C-alpha cells in the first residue's frame, strides 16, 4: 500500500456503519421492550450493547491502523480536529438543555406554582424542593463534602493530563505514562465517589424535581466521565505501545479535549446543582 499523502485519504467501502445501525437498532428496540416489561427486552438490549462495543473497537481499530500506516495527511488531521471540536460542542448543547431546564424550574415554574391559591396554597417554592405534593422533607446534597473533593479531583486530573501532554511533546515516555495513569486513576476515584454519593443520598430520582434534575445532570455527567476514563485508558495503552510521537498525537489531544470538557461541565454542576 503506497503511502501517498498528497491526496485526502478516502477509505475503502466499510461495513462498520451498517453494524452501527444494527447495534443502535437493537439497543433502542431492546430498551423500548424493557421499559414496557417485555421479557426478552433485556437480552436484546444487552446483545445490542455488545454489538455496539464490538463496533467501537472494530471501527476505531481500523482508523488507528490507517493512521499508523501513514495514510492521513495534514488535511485529514485538520478534519479530525474540526470533527472532535464540533462533537464536543454538541455535547455542550446536550448539557445546556438540562441546565436550561433547571434554570427555568428554579426561576419561573416553582414561583408560579407557589403563587397558586387554589391548588397547594401552602407551597413556598423555595429551592431545593421535591414539589408541592411531597410527603417528606427533602434533604438536599451538601456541596462542601464529597462534591467539593470531587471538584478537586477533577481539577487535579486536568493538571495531570496536561503534565502527560507536556511529557508527550518532549518525547518523555515515562512522564506521559505516569501523567496519563494518574489521570485515569483520578477519573476512577471520581466515579467511585459519585457512586458512593448516590448510594448514600437521602433522595432518589423520583424525589420530585430536585431529585430529577440532580440525577439527570450528575448522571449524564458521570456517564461522560466513564466514557472519558475508558478513552484515557485506551490512549494510555496506545502510548505504551508507542503509537504516538511528539509531533503526531491527535488521538491523545482529542481525548484530552474531551476530558477537559467533562471537567468544565463538572464545575458548572458543582456551582449550579450542588452549591447555589
Amino acid at each position, binding site marked *: 500500500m503506497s503511502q501517498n499523502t*498528497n491526496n485526502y485519504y478516502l477509505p475503502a467501502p466499510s461495513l462498520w456503519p451498517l453494524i452501527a445501525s444494527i447495534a443502535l437498532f437493537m439497543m433502542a428496540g431492546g430498551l423500548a421492550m424493557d421499559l414496557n416489561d417485555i421479557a426478552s427486552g433485556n437480552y436484546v438490549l444487552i446483545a445490542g450493547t455488545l454489538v455496539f462495543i464490538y463496533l467501537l473497537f472494530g471501527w476505531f481499530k481500523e482508523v488507528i491502523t490507517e493512521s499508523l500506516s501513514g495514510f492521513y495527511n495534514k488535511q485529514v488531521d485538520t478534519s479530525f480536529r474540526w470533527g472532535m471540536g464540533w462533537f464536543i460542542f454538541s455535547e455542550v448543547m446536550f448539557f445546556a438543555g438540562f441546565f*436550561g431546564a433547571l434554570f427555568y424550574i428554579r426561576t419561573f415554574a416553582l414561583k408560579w406554582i407557589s403563587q397558586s391559591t387554589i391548588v397547594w396554597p401552602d407551597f413556598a417554592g423555595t429551592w431545593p*424542593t421535591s414539589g408541592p405534593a411531597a410527603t417528606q422533607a427533602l434533604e438536599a446534597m451538601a456541596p462542601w463534602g464529597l462534591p467539593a473533593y470531587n471538584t478537586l479531583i477533577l481539577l487535579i486530573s486536568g493538571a495531570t493530563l496536561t503534565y502527560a501532554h507536556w511529557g508527550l511533546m518532549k518525547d518523555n515516555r515515562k512522564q506521559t505514562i505516569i501523567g496519563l495513569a494518574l489521570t485515569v486513576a483520578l477519573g476512577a476515584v471520581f466515579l467511585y465517589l459519585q457512586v458512593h454519593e448516590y448510594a448514600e443520598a437521602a433522595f432518589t430520582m*423520583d424525589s420530585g424535581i430536585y431529585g430529577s434534575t440532580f440525577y439527570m445532570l450528575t448522571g449524564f455527567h458521570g456517564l461522560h466521565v466513564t466514557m472519558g476514563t475508558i478513552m484515557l485508558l485506551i490512549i494510555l495503552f496506545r502510548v505504551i505501545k508507542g503509537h504516538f510521537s511528539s509531533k503526531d498525537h491527535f488521538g491523545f489531544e482529542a481525548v484530552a479535549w474531551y476530558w477537559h470538557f467533562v471537567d468544565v461541565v463538572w464545575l458548572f454542576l458543582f456551582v449550579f446543582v450542588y452549591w447555589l
Partner: protein
Amino acid sequence: MSTTTATHHDDHGDHGHPTGVMRWVASTNHKDIGTMYLWFSLFMFFFAGALALGIRAELFQPGLQFMEPENFNRLTTLHGLIMIFGAIMPAFVGFANWMIPLMIGTSDLAFPRLNNMSFWLMVPAAILLIASIFVPGGAIAGGWTMYPPLSVQNPSMAVDMSILALHILGISSIVGSINIITTILNMRAPGMTLMKMPLFVWTWLITAFLLIASMPVLAGALTMLLTDRHFGTAFFDAAGGGDPVLFQHVFWFFGHPEVYILILPAFGLVSTMIPTFARKPLFGYASMVYATAAIALLSFVVWAHHMFTTGMPVAGQLFFMYSTMLISIPTGVKVFNWIATMWQGSMTFETPMLFSIAFVFLFTLGGFSGLVCAILPVDIQVQDTYYVVAHFHYVLFSGAAMAIMGAVYYWLPKWTGFMYDETLGKWHFWLTTIAFNITFFPMHFTGLAGMPRRVPDYALQFAEFNMISSIGAFALGVSQLLFLYVVIKAIRGGKPAGDNPWEAEGLEWTVASPAPFHTFETPPTVK
C-alpha cells in the same frame, strides 16, 4: 477501479468499485449515499403523503366517516413526524451529499464512513417509527410535538419507540452535520474562499451549525420525557415541582431552529437555480450570506412564539414577538435579492425555474402568514387553528418541498446523464402548484374563522372550505405520481444531457454527466 495512476487510487485503499448490495450497504461514496438519501426521502414523502390523504378523507365532510378520533390523531402525528424527519430533512442531506463536494471541488465528504452511518441510521429509526403503528396502544397520537402530560400518560410502547427513533435520527443528523461543516471548512478547492462558495454551500454550512446546536437539546427533552414516563422523574409534573410548559420550552428551543433547518437549504437551492435561468449572477451575494447567518442566529431567540398562549408573562411574550418580527427583515432581504436577480435577466422558464419562481411567491405568502402569527394579539386568536396549518404548509410545501422538486429537475441531468421530459415536468409543476393552493389557501380562512387544528370533526360552517381542501389534497397527491414517473423515466434514458445543459456556473457543471463515481480526486484551482 482498474486503471492507471498510483497517485489517484492509492489514496483510497485497494477497493474497486463495489457492486451489488455491498455497493450500497458499505458505501463511502457521496454520490451513492446522496442517491440513497434522495430515494429514502421520496419514499417517505409518499408514505407521509398517503397519511395526509387519510386525514383529508376524514375531513372531506363533517362527522366521523372513516376512523376513530384516536386513529385520526395518529395520522396527523405521523404525517408531521415523517414529513419533517423522513422526507424534507433527508432530501436536503441527499442534496448536500451529492452536490457539496462537487460544488467545492473535492473528492468526497471529510468522513466518508460516518457519512454512510448517518444514512443507515435512518433505517432503524424508520423501522421503529413504522413498527410503532402495530404495537398495542397504536402509534403516538399527541401531535408531532409530543407535549406532556399526554405523552407521559400514554402507556403505549409506541411513545418510547418514537422517542428512541428520534434519538437515532438526532445522532444521524448531528454526525452528518459535523461531517458537512468539516468538509466545507477544510476541503474547499484552492482559491475557493468562503465568500466565493456557492450559496447552497453557505446555507448548508449554517444549517449544519443549527443542527449541531439544536438536536442535542431535543435529545434532552426526549430523555426527560422518557424518564418522566418510566423512572418517576417530575420534570413535567407540577405535583413534583415540575412544569409541562418546561417541555414546550426545551422542545421549541430545538423546534424553532429546526424549522430554519427545514428552509435554509431550500433558500440555497433557489439561489442556485434562479441565477442560472435568469442568466445573471445572484444579486447581492454578500448580503445573502449575512442574511442567512442573521436568520440562523435569530432563530435561537424566538422559540416561545410557539407558546404565546401558555400563560407566560407579558414581558416574555413581547420579547418573543419583537424578536420573531425581526427575522422577517433578513428574510425579506433574500426575497428582494431573488427578485433583483431576475430583474432584467434573460429568463427562460424550464421546470426548475418554474418551481423557483413559485417558491419565491408562495414562500413569501407563508412568510407573511408567519409574520401575522408573530403578532401577539393575533396569535392569541390563531394559535392552534388552521391558520397555523396554512402558514407552515406554505413555507414547508411550497417552500421547502417545491424547492426540492425544482432542484431534482435541475440536477437530474447531472445525476443521470439524460434530460428529463420537460413537458411532463411542466405538467407536474402546474398540477402541483394549482392543487397545492386549492388545498391550503382556504385554510387561512377556516383558521381565522376559528377551526381548530388536529380535529377529526368540525363545526358545520367550515364544511365548504374543508371539502375544497380535501379535493385539492387528492389532486396534489395524485400529481406527485407524475413526479415519480418523470424521475424514473429520466433515469432510464432520454436526450443526452451533456456536461452543462443549463449553461450554468458552478464546478458541478465542469464534470461529465452522469457524474463519474469519483470526481475531483485532485482539486481544481479556483480563480
